[in-house]
């Protein structure tokens, strides 16, 4: 009888004792919803009762929403213990890969155990440390991510292992065709795009219809770890797994705002010896096709810089570094709306896609106008994909799922120009690049 009482007492005590489990949530993947995600994380921490948290990141103070790496520690709504969120945004396909292939593809996150990562944070009301703070310690640790954002579905990658949840769409990410400063390309059709990215260049007259335009337009874009690239190859019918021919701008002149040297993306990303501006991270590795032309920019920022410049007289190199000629070189790419707006501020020009252009975004650069939104939500403009917010397949309940749900719900109100809430869409598609059909039929 005594034993029974003892067992009962211990069991009751175990059940009554509150759980103060701390949790670490690592987030990685696409950059398209980075600002929306980080804004949502901050808003969630702010909303916690007696908010108390610290955060650090790699951008200037006040610009955490554009950071590549960030670390958040404190009280999160609905979580009893301390919640640590670590973010590293490294691309859609790479993000999915990180969820399913650990430890080989573990991303690097700010190390939360290194006190130096949060040196100036206030203890009670929250605080911010950033890269400009003296002695800011940027120690990193690798770990398998719990959550990954992606511009495309996992089924559009070679890493289609099961992930959670059943409906991961956190919004719709909008893209646009973009040409560089000084270019007269105004509209890009699906046919234009396939011709351009199949050979790497196409006559300007093919885009303008003016026989006098005898110069060439060149294809520029991302490497195959990018969801943006996956989206444009699916949407245009080129084929995600098919190799392309793309150029990379190696050198430019900030003073004259001109691109000066560009090259067919070389095997491995660099020649031997390496030329100025080359980067081994530009090679394509996801589809096992590291071949000439199939590489591309490993991040959107380099592409944005090139698109903001003119191409009045550019030295064109082949994949081996040999000079083909020095000519006028207009560029065309497909890029997320956020990056396009940044490039436009530097001089790039929005193009129409199959005759439809996001006019007002090109003018205002803030939020999408009702007219532009209507083109997306009602199917006239199809340069979009679902922004997927995946969880690891083994995470079906618990604190990580709570954090996931809180962030996903908050994102809907923090999209800005990044995209459109799924609930606003009057059309849908089953797969990336698939047929866009009305949801009311």
């Amino acid at each position, binding site marked *: 009888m005594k034993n029974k009482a003892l067992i009962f007492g211990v069991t009751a005590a175990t059940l009554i004792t509150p759980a103060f489990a701390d949790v670490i949530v690592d987030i990685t993947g696409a950059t398209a919803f980075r600002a929306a995600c980080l804004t949502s994380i901050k808003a969630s921490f702010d909303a916690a009762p007696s908010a108390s948290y610290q955060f650090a990141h790699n951008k200037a103070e006040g610009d955490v929403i554009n950071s590549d790496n960030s670390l958040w520690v404190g009280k999160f709504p609905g979580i009893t213990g301390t919640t640590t969120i670590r973010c590293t945004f490294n691309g859609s396909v790479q993000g999915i890969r990180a969820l399913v292939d650990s430890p080989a593809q573990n991303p690097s996150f700010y190390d939360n155990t290194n006190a130096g990562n949060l040196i100036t944070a206030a203890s009670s009301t929250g605080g911010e440390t950033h890269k400009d703070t003296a002695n800011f310690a940027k120690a990193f640790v690798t770990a398998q991510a719990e959550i990954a954002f992606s511009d495309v579905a996992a089924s559009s990658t070679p890493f289609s292992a099961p992930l959670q949840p059943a409906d991961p769409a956190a919004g719709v990410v909008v893209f646009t065709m973009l040409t560089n400063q000084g270019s007269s390309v105004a509209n890009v059709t699906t046919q234009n795009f396939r011709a351009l990215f199949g050979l790497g260049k196409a006559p300007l007259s093919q885009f303008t219809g003016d026989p006098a335009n005898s110069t060439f337009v060149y294809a520029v874009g991302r490497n195959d770890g990018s969801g943006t690239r996956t989206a444009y190859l699916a949407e245009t019918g080129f084929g995600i*797994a098919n190799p392309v021919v793309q150029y990379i701008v190696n050198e430019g002149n900030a003073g004259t705002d001109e691109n000066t040297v560009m090259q067919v993306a070389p095997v491995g990303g660099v020649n031997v010896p390496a030329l100025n501006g080359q980067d081994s991270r530009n090679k394509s590795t996801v589809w096992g096709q590291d071949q000439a032309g199939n590489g591309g920019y490993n991040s959107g920022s380099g592409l944005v810089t090139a698109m903001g410049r003119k191409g009045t007289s550019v030295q064109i190199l082949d994949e081996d570094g040999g000079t083909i000629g020095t000519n006028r070189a207009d560029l065309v790419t497909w890029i997320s709306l956020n990056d396009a707006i940044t490039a436009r501020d530097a001089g790039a020009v929005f193009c129409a896609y199959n005759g439809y252009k996001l006019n007002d975004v090109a003018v205002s650069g803030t939020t999408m106008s009702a007219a532009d939104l209507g083109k997306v939500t009602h199917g006239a403009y199809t340069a979009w994909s679902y922004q997927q917010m995946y969880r690891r397949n083994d995470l079906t309940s618990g604190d990580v799922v709570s954090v996931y749900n809180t962030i996903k719900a908050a994102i809907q109100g923090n999209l800005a120009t990044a995209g459109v809430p799924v609930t606003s869409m009057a059309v849908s598609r089953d797969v990336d690049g698939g047929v866009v059909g009305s949801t009311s039929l």
Partner: protein
Amino acid sequence: MKTPVLIVFGSILLCGTIAWVLLVSARLDEAAPPERSNLRTGRAPGNHPLSDPGPSENLKNPASGATPDHVASLKENRKSMDNMTPPQIGASRPARREGKQKQPTNQVVRPDAPAAPLAIRLADDFRLPASFMAMAARQSKPEATPVPMPVATVSEQLITEFYQSIARELSTEENSEPVVETDPVTGDLTQVVQPNQGSERITKQFDERYRAMFGDTAYSYHLIRSAIEKTLPLPSPSSVPQD
């Protein structure tokens, strides 16, 4: 006096349990025949090959943020997926029909089809997804340039996932009577998938996935081949060579 009775009773219980387990295993083996070389035949798996690897308590060490060891098992799962063999494809349509001509299928309607996963076969008038035609074309040209491993993996995955989707669809078709046939060679039971609204929707979805993955040109080519394959007239008995 009580002890010997208990021992005897326990032995009977144990033997009965072992016999029951062996019987169930044998039935499962019988209901899960080996994959066959047929363009239209595949396995309707009971479980996804990459299902939840274990307990959901895969939280990181709160202090260090280190990933627990058992999470790495996902990688092993990934490897096993890479090694997974999709239904073998390559038998041409005439050859398949020739086989049927020689040994007619014993087709029966079984409302009480067994719950264990059956192999499934697409009916003769079922339009094959473009990915099937592409795989068959590739296997018929062994001298062709090998495709990179990720591309080959995705091609096989499209076929595996198609069969999984069809199997799920079949399990939801509560009002229909499944058509189950006995394989004339092995005697295994195979469920025949008839074209209907649900299966056509799945076929279209996988066609869209194939188009996104391999482009319009390849998609159009294989879609036409698929349509032709479906509408080809059955060879008359006199035209089939006899042994």
